[in-house]
């Protein structure tokens, strides 16, 4: 294993950077911005070390750091990444750079606090993805709320107080029940290590209750129907940077939670309640798709589109249980999870870029209403090109990253059930409808009013942001193989793990999943994947 504490560095470097930026104060706004950018770029470069040093042939945790934190309760400072968390960490550090750049000239009120909040949040989010101790995870998970709460509340729109308190309380509500579940699991396993939790045998009642506690936490975060209502509010009121982080990364944390906690810790409950998640996902895809269609506010529209796209992610994850229960099918399960993962990363790029696009317009016109625009392409040709490109990828155009994930999930769903796949596939139409219609109204047509007539095209800063994200979307769309390779071993291992019944011997008659074959596999994380 790597001796150098790389993960610790990626977590704490931006947090220290945040403190430095705070200390630099607002006397010279440029100074704090440059310090902020330097730390963001440094963090990204350091996090690339994770990609370079990553061994994609194993499902083992890598870059592991483990030391005692609260010894009396066996709480540890336990970090490590696998193929699921590593790409998400790099996504986090990558997106943070654009957020800092996007706030460069726009944020005039206390810019140092703004930069510091995003840097600190960057570190905390990396912590969420790399924590392998449940309490450490929970600490990062909740700590994340504080900077976001302040970002929306201080730099947000007119209704920001309502939005940010709603955001905080919703998420807090979901997560405290997870805390109780985690403590309960601690008494079952004797440690707070998530890997130990994954090896536990649990009865059906306990599994169901734990699953529901996790579901409350993660469903709010994803967000799934019907607990999604905080998201449109938070997005609309948040400053551009806040929206980008929310959509690109925070939502992914919910999806990550399902993969790291719900599915491996309570596979039997997940299997027996998979219908619920699948149903909620399909509702999110269809119903929220229609809701997005009628939005008048661009940010709200993209927010609803995010909910619909995250529905794909949860669908891809939980369709696995239908596939593994059907002995005739063997392969589709890995594809479902991998599709969900690709969808998460891709949605991170696309939604981030779309919010940046809205930010570009908002900075000039100070309106997010679709009706206030029209014919933007006449005055902002470059911007128009980018906006159309991202809209296309949001609609899942082949060749962009949006297509890859959706295609894989639909393919996996098709194996499970034809009609579900039909329902899921309608999103391709719906997403095309609501995004392209928005683009048509905003970008194309005649110049609608005087404000649009005097618009300036992208400046260098904005071009850099949108250009880099466009490159990422294209790269992932044309050549997704590197990302798939990284996660393949981990996902295969996860599928093996969730296809084994974890009920104790007394209840083994109720197993819908395969009975555990060799006992050794259950203890701890099974090691090598079967190639």
């Amino acid at each position, binding site marked *: 294993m790597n001796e150098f504490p790389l993960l610790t560095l990626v977590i704490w470097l931006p947090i220290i950077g945040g403190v430095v930026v705070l200390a630099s104060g607002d006397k010279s706004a440029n100074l704090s911005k440059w310090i902020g950018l330097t730390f963001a770029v440094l963090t990204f470069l350091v996090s690339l070390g994770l990609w370079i040093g990553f061994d994609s042939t194993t499902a083992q945790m890598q870059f592991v750091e483990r030391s005692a934190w*609260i010894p009396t309760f066996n709480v540890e400072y336990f970090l490590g990444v696998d193929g699921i968390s590593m790409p998400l960490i790099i996504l986090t550090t990558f997106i943070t750079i654009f957020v800092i750049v996007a706030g460069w000239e726009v944020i005039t009120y206390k810019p140092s606090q703004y930069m510091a909040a995003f840097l600190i949040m960057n570190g905390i989010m990396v912590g969420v993805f790399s924590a392998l101790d449940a309490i450490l995870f929970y600490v990062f998970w*909740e700590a994340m709320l504080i900077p976001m709460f302040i970002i929306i509340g201080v730099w947000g729109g007119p209704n920001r107080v309502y939005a940010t308190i709603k955001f905080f309380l919703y998420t807090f509500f979901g997560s*405290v029940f997870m805390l109780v579940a985690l403590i309960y699991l601690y008494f079952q396993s004797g440690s707070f290590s998530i890997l130990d939790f994954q090896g536990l045998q649990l009865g059906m009642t306990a599994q169901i209750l734990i699953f529901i506690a996790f579901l409350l936490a993660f469903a709010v975060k994803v967000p799934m129907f019907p607990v999604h209502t905080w998201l449109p509010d938070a997005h609309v009121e948040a400053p551009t940077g806040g929206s980008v982080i929310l959509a690109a990364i925070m939502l992914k944390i919910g999806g990550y939670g399902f993969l790291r906690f719900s599915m491996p810790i309570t596979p039997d409950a997940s299997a027996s309640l998979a219908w619920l998640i699948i149903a909620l996902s399909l509702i999110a895809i269809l119903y929220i798709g229609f809701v997005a269609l009628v939005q008048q506010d661009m940010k709200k529209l993209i927010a609803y589109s995010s909910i619909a796209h995250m529905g794909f992610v949860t669908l891809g994850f939980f369709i696995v249980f239908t596939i593994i229960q059907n002995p005739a099918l063997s392969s589709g399960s890995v594809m479902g999870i991998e599709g969900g993962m690709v969808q998460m990363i891709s949605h991170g790029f696309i939604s981030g870029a779309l919010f940046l696009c809205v930010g570009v317009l908002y900075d000039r016109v100070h309106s997010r209403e679709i009706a206030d625009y029209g014919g933007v392409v006449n005055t902002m040709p470059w911007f128009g090109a980018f906006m159309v490109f991202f809209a296309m990828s949001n609609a899942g155009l082949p060749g962009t990253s949006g297509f890859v994930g959706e295609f894989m999930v639909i393919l996996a769903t098709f194996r499970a059930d034809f009609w579900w796949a039909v329902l899921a596939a309608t999103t391709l139409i719906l997403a095309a409808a609501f995004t392209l219609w928005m683009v048509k109204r905003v970008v194309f047509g005649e110049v609608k009013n005087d404000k649009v007539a005097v618009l300036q095209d992208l400046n260098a800063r904005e071009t850099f942001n949108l250009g880099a994200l466009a490159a990422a979307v294209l790269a992932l769309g044309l050549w997704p193989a590197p990302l798939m390779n990284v996660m393949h071993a981990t996902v295969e291992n996860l599928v093996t793990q969730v296809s084994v019944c974890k009920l104790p011997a007394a209840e083994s008659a109720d197993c819908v999943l395969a009975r555990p074959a060799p006992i050794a596999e259950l203890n701890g994380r099974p090691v090598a994947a079967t190639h």
Partner: protein
Amino acid sequence: MPFDAANLLPILPEIAILITACVVLVVDLYLKEKDKGFNHTLSLLGLVVAIALTGAVGGGERQIFFDGNLVRDAMSDLLKGAILLVSLFAFIYARPWLKDRGMLVGEFYVLGLLAVLGMLIMVSANSFLTIYLGLELQALCLYALVAFDRDSKQGAEAAMKYFVLGALGSGMLLYGISMIYGATGSIEFGPVAQAVAEQGISNKVLVFGIVFLVIGIGFKFGAVPFHMWVPDIYEGAPTPAVLILGSAPKIAAFALAIRMLADGLQGLLADWQGMLIILAVLSMGLGNLVAIAQTNIKRMLAYSTISHVGFIFLGLLAGSAQGYASAMFYAIVYAVMAAGAFGILLILSREGFDAENLDDLKGLNDRDPWYAAMMAIIMFSMAGVPPTVGFMAKLLVLESVIRLDLVWLALLAVAFSIIGAFYYLRVVKFIYFDRPALNAPVLVTTGGVRAAMTLNGLALLALGLFPAALLSLCQAAFV
């Protein structure tokens, strides 16, 4: 038993505080009006000496002395240190307020120090009699402190209420003690515990006594339904008095509960556990719900105290070493948070103006970003949001409750803490999201206050990140 000077060693901290109080009392007579600040210096000095002495005579085996009336053990060492430290901060925060109002007089410090002395005695008590004496010493000083601003009608009213209800609580406690004495024939905790072990719960008088003891404890903690005095006193009393009575006395109240229930009546756990569950649920529920409706921040903090008492009871009612340690951790942490919160209110006050309403916190981030950050940390800590220590405290009590298989109680507790999060967030909202009122003057504070508040706020963060040290001290108290 002949007098043995070695017996005095373990109570050197108490002696130091007593001497300081007497010295301040005398010196004050000879001080000119402009030199009254010397009282402050002397008191701080006394507290620092007492802290040093606590460290010096502390550690090692449990000692019982003065005919079994006093005890010194790991728990008393830690609690004494915490009480003295929190009081030290309280005195530092209070000084500018007192000075602005011409109240920087010896009496405040004498009363404050004697209250601290009372708390220390409660912490080291080994018999019902000693604990009662300590309690009354503390309470009488606090009654007087509440009425300290003698021209204030509100203060006088609050003091009267506090006195009447406090006396009622003491009466209940004393009545309970007499029952226990009747049933067991002793007022020392050791023999009482022995007698209880022999008689068990068959003795009705004993159980009857416990009911009154728990009521007395409930009164002193301010637990629902014995909380009526808390909001009125917090609102009516001058803020420095609230600071003193709202912080360290919670630690002393914890000692009161633990000495009587754990040291003396552990054998009757089955009886008092149920009572504490009721008190805990009611306190968390009512405290958190009613706090939402408050616009006066002192009153809001009063209800917040009530809800925190509910959480402390969650740890106590576990009845295990683990549970007591978690309650102790919570009580100490709460005292530090409360001292910081009221400290900020004092900082915001100035001559002729008391910061009392939530509105007064508006735009603190614009007026002084550092204090704003400290207050935000305190509020997030009270709400129990990581990485602050408030989360660790809640985690530990929840852990001890789930250990008892009372998962429903843990779920109830977290549900109430979600409700509670709202009103703490509202404070953060006023600090960060609102702009200051136009006539808000620049905050002027002394370097000492700033240093103390910095320590106080950062301690909440540091303890949240590194809770292991304090936690192991707490656990060492109950092995």
